[in-house]
């Protein structure tokens, strides 16, 4: 799968059921980079019904594909290749990155010290916003409404107890706690400050480099249904991708190799609204790696197991 998380504000969120409003962004999940560009061409653009939508001239993303990548500058942040990332995964990504340099892409190692804040900041902001966004599912106007008892409080409690799953409840409780008076400064406010630090670090990198290249996840893809009972590992698997959400920067993930027979993702994070050149870069990498055929085979087998 190729996945693109566009720049915050490029694709309207009107009609999207909100989870974390300041992080949510609709993006294509496609078989390859070309499909990704084609879908983005269609869904990107200003929408006056979304106040966070950005008004700018429309671009033609598919037209970038096939362009030269020589001279592009990519930064490899140390923090994304070390502790917490499985060695075979970072090796596969590094190997793919090596191919980039043969295409004329300039590579350099950099450091993004604020990376350590990304996970806590993300889970505070996301859960806080989710606790508020999901509060409307209260059984009054629409959806499930458990009305066995006479009191309003019981209606709220029973509806939400029955309607939400364990992970959603966990996040609502975390977020409610983070916003509670007396804890707001220690959690939510601090998370916003961390977010600013990460943003500043990214801006600094983008002064000198076009892209930041990292693994998409600390492990290869896990099988469908695997690990869902271990929330902490699930949260940690987001560690590489959440900085792009927190900063609003666009990011693309493409398969770049295999570990234990399962695909490994390579992530390209770019400057805001630089999706065109990012897709141009990813398209070139996809052609060079030439692993599409093997991916289709794996997808077929995984499908059979389900």
């Amino acid at each position, binding site marked *: 799968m190729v996945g693109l998380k566009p720049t915050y504000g490029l694709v309207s*969120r*009107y*009609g*999207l*059921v*909100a989870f*974390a*409003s*300041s992080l949510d962004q609709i993006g294509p999940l496609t078989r390859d980079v070309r499909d990704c560009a084609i879908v983005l061409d269609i869904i990107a653009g200003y929408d*006056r*019904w*979304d*106040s*966070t939508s950005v008004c700018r001239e429309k671009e033609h993303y598919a037209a970038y594909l096939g362009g030269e990548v020589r001279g592009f500058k990519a930064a490899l942040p140390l923090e994304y290749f070390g502790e917490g990332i499985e060695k075979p995964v970072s090796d596969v990504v590094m190997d793919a990155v090596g191919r980039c340099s043969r295409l004329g892409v300039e590579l350099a190692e950099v450091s993004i010290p604020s990376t350590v804040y990304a996970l806590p900041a993300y889970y505070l902001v996301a859960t*806080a*916003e989710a*606790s*508020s966004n999901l*509060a*409307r599912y*209260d059984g*009054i*106007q*629409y959806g499930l409404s458990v009305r066995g008892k*006479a009191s*309003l409080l019981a209606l*709220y409690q029973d509806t939400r107890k029955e309607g939400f799953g364990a992970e959603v409840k966990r996040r609502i409780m975390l977020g*409610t706690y983070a*916003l*509670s*008076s007396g804890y*707001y400064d220690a959690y*939510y406010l601090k998370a916003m400050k961390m977010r600013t630090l990460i943003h500043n670090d990214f801006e600094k990198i983008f002064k000198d480099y076009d892209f930041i290249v990292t693994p998409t996840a600390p492990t290869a893809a896990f099988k469908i249904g695997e690990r869902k009972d271990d929330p902490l590992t699930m949260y940690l698997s987001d560690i590489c991708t959440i900085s792009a959400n927190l900063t609003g920067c666009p990011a693309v993930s493409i398969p770049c190799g295999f570990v234990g027979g399962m695909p490994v993702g390579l992530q390209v994070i770019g400057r805001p609204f630089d999706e065109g050149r990012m897709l141009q870069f990813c398209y070139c990498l996809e052609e060079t790696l030439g692993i599409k055929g093997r991916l289709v085979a794996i997808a077929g087998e995984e499908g059979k197991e389900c």
Partner: protein
Amino acid sequence: MLNIYEIVIGLEVHVELDTQSKMFCPCANRFGATPNTNVCPVCLGLPGSLPVLNEHTLVLALQAALALNCRVNPFSRFARKNYFYPDLPKAYQISQYELPLAGSGCLELFKDGEPARKVNIERLHLEEDAGKLLHDESHAFSHVDYNRCGVPLIEIVTNPDLRSPAETRLFLEALRRMLLYARVSDCKMEEGSLRCDANISLRPHGTKELGQKVEIKNMNSFKAVQRGLEYEVERQAAILNQGGRINQETRRWHEDKGVTSEMRTKEKDHDYRYFPEPDLPPLVVDAALLSKIRSNMPELPEFRYRRFTADYALSHYQAGIIISDPYLADFFEETTKLNNQPQKVANWLLGDVLKLLKQVDTDIETLPFKPSHLAELLMLIDGGKISGRTAKEVLEESFSAGKLPAEIVAEKGLGQISDTNELEQVVDDVLKKNSAAVRDHQEGKKNAFTFLVGSVMKATRGKANPVIVTALLQGKLDGSKQ
């Protein structure tokens, strides 16, 4: 016993802004519509909907801020106020918290045209209104009307500067007047477009530390605010006098019983979990916008007061009453433009027009009787077409139906008779029939003349021009003497 305590009152006033559409969606902002007809996915809080600020909301809020001498923050934010209630479909209200639109304002209270007291305004912020629960006693459930949901409000928070229930009422009246002048709201407490909660505490005179405050809600008229606070002063004083302590709580005023009762205590108080609204960008008010608002600002009461006393030579008393209602002041000014006689217009407005308004219990702006009607009426009097007495009759008729005075006069044949020939016949007739009175007059009895004038008026059903009648009678009687 009460006067050993100083009363300290602060207000939170909610004012609905008079916009065409709601704050974050295109639905109509209209009072009294059929329930749940002015709604859409945004104000119903349906999943996937997003708010977009109605720019006019900001314009009106800024007009209010300037009218209240507030400092406008160039950068403010919307925040979510989270709580569960059936009239709040998103389960949060979009409001402002840490960074309000404006702060540090004040409103001057006047006494006899002189500034008497300054009440400081702590903050003024924007927020959306919630819906309305309709309780139906015959059912075990309540209805929700979402028409009001998303209607733009400003919340005005005063400092604890008010010192009595009566003064609080004066402040509210002055605030209402100011906001009417700023053209931001119709400020109708009975329709809920102006609502007021009060914080009240007592402290021994001379002490600086504030006493424990209690919040009072559900006071739905200016009178109710004063009564509710008066009750609360006595309740708190009685507790303090017995050595008791005031609980930190919210109390509800019951207009029918004339008492307040506990609504919720501090322990059960909401934690609203405010945080910045991620669906809306920061509210930026730059110098250009502010100066545009300032230059388009409607005329405020003090300025108008000064202008009315200077330009139209109105007395302080006249000007004071006329400017107290911006629509009355508009009415005065428009009528004066038409007939250029400010004193006469003022006399009629303050006299018969206000009396009639009170009788039919309505507002001047909704009346079918317009400035053009009053101007026409005054013209009929000046032109000798009708007498002052007839004019009052015509006014009454024109008042509720909005019929033009000239039309009424023509239809009812109320026109004053100024035709000398026509009147001479009547005078001759009266003299013939009242030879006794003529004799009395010639013998020097003064009231005989008055009687004869009265008889002519009676014969013409009050329509005779009294000046001409007097001259004619005088002439005839003097003539017959010689």
